[in-house]
């Protein structure tokens, strides 16, 4: 497996977690899935502190299932998911939620819920029946609203916002959770290009500035190449290529992983851009050869 060397982890230095302790989430030989046949079939993967890692691959390749397995929503059938060296299955849902935040695909807010109320839900794992709200919770919510540029919309109902604003509100919720690791499942799907750019820039900035590990499932190869520090390409339940965009987004990998015939150019920013050829089916034989 052509995987780049794992860079040394930098600690998450968010205000609430300034313990100098690095959050490490990784999995070994994970086999996972709901149905009779596993969707994820033997994956090694690590979330890298201070970086955005994009999981990309064709539909049904297992990228969302891998993300859910990392988040402990699904228990792996084989292999292990380790959070700071501990088997994630041995931790409580709540203990995991204090360190790993998950934003599933296409979440729906209850009718009438305001942005502030939604973001405040991110504090859930830090609260108990007896200690329901603290100044620390208020700070985290205010900071998340500010980071996502939603302070002015805080009292609007979520269902009255535009698609991009709504997605920012959900991201603010997982930011308020103040976890070292953020897992997001297709946070940009169905959004305008400009809104996609805004959201991915925001995630890249948060990873870099706060040392958080961000893993994001993306649909768009070019968006992943432009904003991710690392890309893991999945096909048929396995990671076939992993590393910096320049090393992974290549003509050969696009053919092998996506069955896509495309040219790869270098954008002015230095990252690769893929330009599909008009008849995209020609790579079929290449993929067959790869498997």
């Amino acid at each position: 497996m052509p995987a780049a060397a794992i860079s040394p982890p930098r600690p998450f230095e968010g205000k609430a977690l300034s313990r100098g302790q690095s959050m490490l989430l990784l999995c070994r030989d994970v086999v996972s899935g709901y149905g009779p046949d596993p969707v994820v079939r033997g994956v090694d993967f690590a979330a890298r502190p201070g970086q955005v890692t994009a999981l990309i691959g064709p539909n049904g390749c297992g990228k969302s299932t891998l993300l859910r397995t990392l988040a402990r929503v699904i228990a792996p059938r084989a292999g292990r998911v380790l959070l700071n060296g501990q088997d994630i299955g041995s931790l409580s849902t709540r203990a995991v939620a204090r360190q790993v935040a998950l934003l599933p695909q296409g979440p729906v807010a209850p009718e009438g819920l305001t942005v502030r109320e939604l973001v405040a839900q991110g504090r859930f794992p830090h609260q108990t029946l007896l200690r329901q709200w603290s100044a620390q919770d208020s700070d985290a919510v205010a900071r998340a609203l500010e980071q996502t540029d939603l302070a002015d919309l805080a009292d609007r109902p979520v269902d009255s916002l535009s698609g991009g604003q709504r997605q920012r509100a959900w991201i603010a919720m997982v930011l308020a959770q103040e976890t070292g690791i953020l897992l997001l499942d297709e946070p940009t799907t169905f959004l305008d290009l400009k809104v996609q750019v805004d959201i991915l820039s925001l995630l890249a900035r948060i990873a870099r500035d706060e040392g958080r590990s961000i893993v994001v499932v993306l649909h768009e190869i070019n968006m992943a190449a432009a904003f991710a520090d690392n890309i893991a390409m999945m096909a048929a339940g396995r990671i076939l290529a992993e590393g910096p965009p320049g090393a992974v987004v290549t003509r050969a990998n696009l053919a092998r992983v996506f069955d896509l015939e495309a040219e790869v150019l270098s954008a002015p920013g230095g990252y690769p851009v893929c330009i599909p050829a008009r008849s995209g089916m020609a790579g079929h034989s290449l993929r067959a050869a790869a498997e």
Partner: protein
Amino acid sequence: MTARTEAAPQAARWRAMAGAPVLLAALVLAVLWHIAVGARQIPLAEVVAALTRPDPALFDHVVIRDLRLPRAVYAVTVGASLSVAGALMQGVTRNPLAEPGLLGLMAGASFAVVIWVALSGQTGGGMMPLVAAVGALGGATLVWGIASAAPGGAQPLSLILAGAAVTAFLGAIVTLAHLLDEQTFQSLRVWLNGTLSGRSWEVFLWSSPWFAAGLALSLLLARQVTALAMGDEVATGLGVDVARIKLLALGAVVALTAASVALAGPLGFVGLVIPHVVRLFAGSDCRVIVPLSALTGAIYLVVVDILARVVLAPLEIATGLVTALVGGPVFLWLVRARL
């Protein structure tokens, strides 16, 4: 950062809870009115006197203490319990039409009670709420199983249809049993329509641990149920043990429904109407909705029970008929507005 942004979201929660004292005062007034009304109208001053300085020599005081006060207590308890059960079900399932009556819990509970009475000949005792709980759980399981097997799975509509089918089916068996053994069922006939009249204090005492446990559990679960409203996966990501919370919520709903049915029979639509009314003025946080539903539901059933005795006086209408007359149109409105 402005002060507005600093304002904690729980400020909104306390604002919504500010309605609680008003509701509590309304409940006290409704209960006093409920006690005053009857075959013989008793002045409010006399009602208060009977409650604060009872005089066993006065006939009115005896009537109030032995007959009217217990009935008001039943109305308060059952109204609060059914409303909380509905609020919890709607929150956990994210289904605006979830309610003990519509989803087969009441039918299951009353079916089980009827069979139990027929077999054992007892109409009271500690077995009543237990039998009702087993029936409620069975009814819920049956409805959920049928809806899950339907194309598209357990959706609000398939659940309602399965609930209607199970309710009709179990109702038919009850009617059949009634035809075969009129003697036993005479005592159950009024109860099967849902009523607060002629219930025994003994059944209430046996049911009260179920009411208490169900209400306490509901209040404890409210915070987690609020997180569940955003979907199972989001809730899991926030640290909610979804399977455990759903199981506990089912336990609370079954306990509340079973105790209510054992005491007052199947009172339909209370659990549907009240949480929706409460959400109109209290928002979507279950930590607010659950306690306010309890208060509002108690007021509602007390007032409904007053109407049941006043509208056709001296005839008395079964309380369950009045809740259905009010709840039916609300149900239709919800189907149009929310499905």
